[in-house]
């Protein structure tokens, strides 16, 4: 099958004056085109580090990272990153926020501007494009943040616990919406989360990492029996949902 992202024996060490931290150790994984993969693991096990490596923000100590069969050198334009909080700039309108990536890449022109406006309209923010972020609800802001990432048209989306700052109700609703947008735009997505239910309901595959230094502990292909039009919320109804949930819960081996 068509691999978009490939990590081969990747190790990442951080160096500070206090010492050396091995965040990721000898990690290998493949992501296929169009796949929705979730990465779960104990906090501090190197999940964010993994996304930074894939995006090219930081360089691995050893090992190789390939995107579309080419080694990642510096920042990859194929990758869009969505952070934990929406990080919309309060001093810019929603529209100006969503085109910031285009501005930075000097790709802002009539067509791309129109594209960004179309995305806003399509995903229910059309009337709010001249509003400021603080005038919008948490869910709408999160959607605007996703559109900001989509506006530069990346192939792969990296989502680092994107819903963790939202309350539970909003979280359910927005993860549904964002999942639909990602599927509609036919993007490959890598989602980091610590919410097992979220991972099971949204993903095609879940990768469980060990404690730091992060290694792949196990992988699960998620196959849920639901009707044709499956969405994360419908997936939660599937009979296998609990089985996957319990399996991953045990693997995470949480001690309190």
């Amino acid at each position, binding site marked *: 099958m068509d691999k978009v992202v490939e990590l081969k024996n990747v190790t990442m060490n951080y160096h500070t004056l206090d010492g050396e931290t091995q965040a990721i150790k000898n990690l290998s994984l493949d992501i296929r085109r169009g796949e929705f993969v979730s990465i779960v693991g104990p906090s501090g096990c190197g999940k964010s580090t993994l996304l930074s490596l894939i995006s090219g923000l930081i360089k691995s100590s050893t090992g190789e990272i390939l995107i579309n069969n080419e080694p990642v050198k510096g920042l990859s334009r194929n990758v869009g990153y969505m952070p934990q909080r929406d990080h919309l700039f309060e001093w810019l309108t929603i529209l100006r926020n969503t085109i910031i990536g285009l501005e930075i890449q000097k790709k802002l022109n009539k067509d791309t501007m129109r594209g960004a406006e179309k995305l806003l309209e399509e995903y229910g923010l059309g009337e709010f494009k001249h509003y*400021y972020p603080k005038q919008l609800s948490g869910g709408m802001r999160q959607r605007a943040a996703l559109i900001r990432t989509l506006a530069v048209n990346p192939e792969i989306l990296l989502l680092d616990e994107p819903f963790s700052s939202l309350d539970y109700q909003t979280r359910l609703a927005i993860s549904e919406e964002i999942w639909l947008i990602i599927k509609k735009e036919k993007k490959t997505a890598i989602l980091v989360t610590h919410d097992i239910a979220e991972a099971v309901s949204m993903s095609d595959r879940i990768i469980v990492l060990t404690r730091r230094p992060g290694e792949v502990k196990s992988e699960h292909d998620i196959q849920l029996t639901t009707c044709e039009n499956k969405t994360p919320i419908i997936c939660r109804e599937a009979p296998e949902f609990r089985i996957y949930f319990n399996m991953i819960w045990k693997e995470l081996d949480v001690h309190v």
Partner: protein
Amino acid sequence: MYEEHSSEHKEFIRKEKVTKNAVIISRIIILAAIFLLWEAAANLKWIDPFIMSQPTRIVQTIINLSKDGSLFLHTGVTIYETIIGFLSGTILGTFIAVLLWWSNFAARVLDPYLVVLNALPKTALGPIILVWVGGTTGSIIVMALLLSIIVTILNVYQSFKSCDEDKIKLLKTFGATKVQILKKVVFPSSIPEIISTLKINVGLSLVGVIVGEFLVSKAGLGYLIIYGGQVFKMDLVMTSVIILAMAAALMYLSVAWIEKKFIKMR
């Protein structure tokens, strides 16, 4: 906004208004009481008006000074010097803060120098500046600049440094250069801090200007104060101090007003 308020809510609003008015009235009463007491004390010879001055004498001084236009001249000079001082201090300070943000190495090297300069009472440098720059307006403005620039550098640099790392990371994933990061996030997110520094700088520059005018002794409210003291015209000194207080408040309120406008705009 336009919905009908319950009577309970109206009552709440009414009480709030009453309290607000009471505060304003109390302030006016205190001010009036001070001046009345001062006037009475002078008339009843409890205090010597030649040393302590008195409100009616101050009013008379203001009238006299207004007639020959010197009041406006000296007040204008002080305000002008202060504005130039705090604007140049803020702009130059912000510019240096940008350079420090740009080069982490320079920031680390210069850190102890800034700490010492910040701790040093800059007014002590007055005589040096007077000798180097000369007894002109230039000296006064340099004095005002010196007082505000170090604080500006430290505050603005600190604010640049405290810009959200994740926001910077987000821009980096779009491929942003350092200039773009500065222009798109680091600088805009520090604007409130820069404006509040402007507010601090009004006060600091005014200190610099007054000390400068003491030393240069050519024009300005600082000059009037020192001159009045030397020729023992306490009416002139008191008048100048009162005008100075009003000018200082006016400048501070103007900057506060700009700040409020600005925050509303965002």
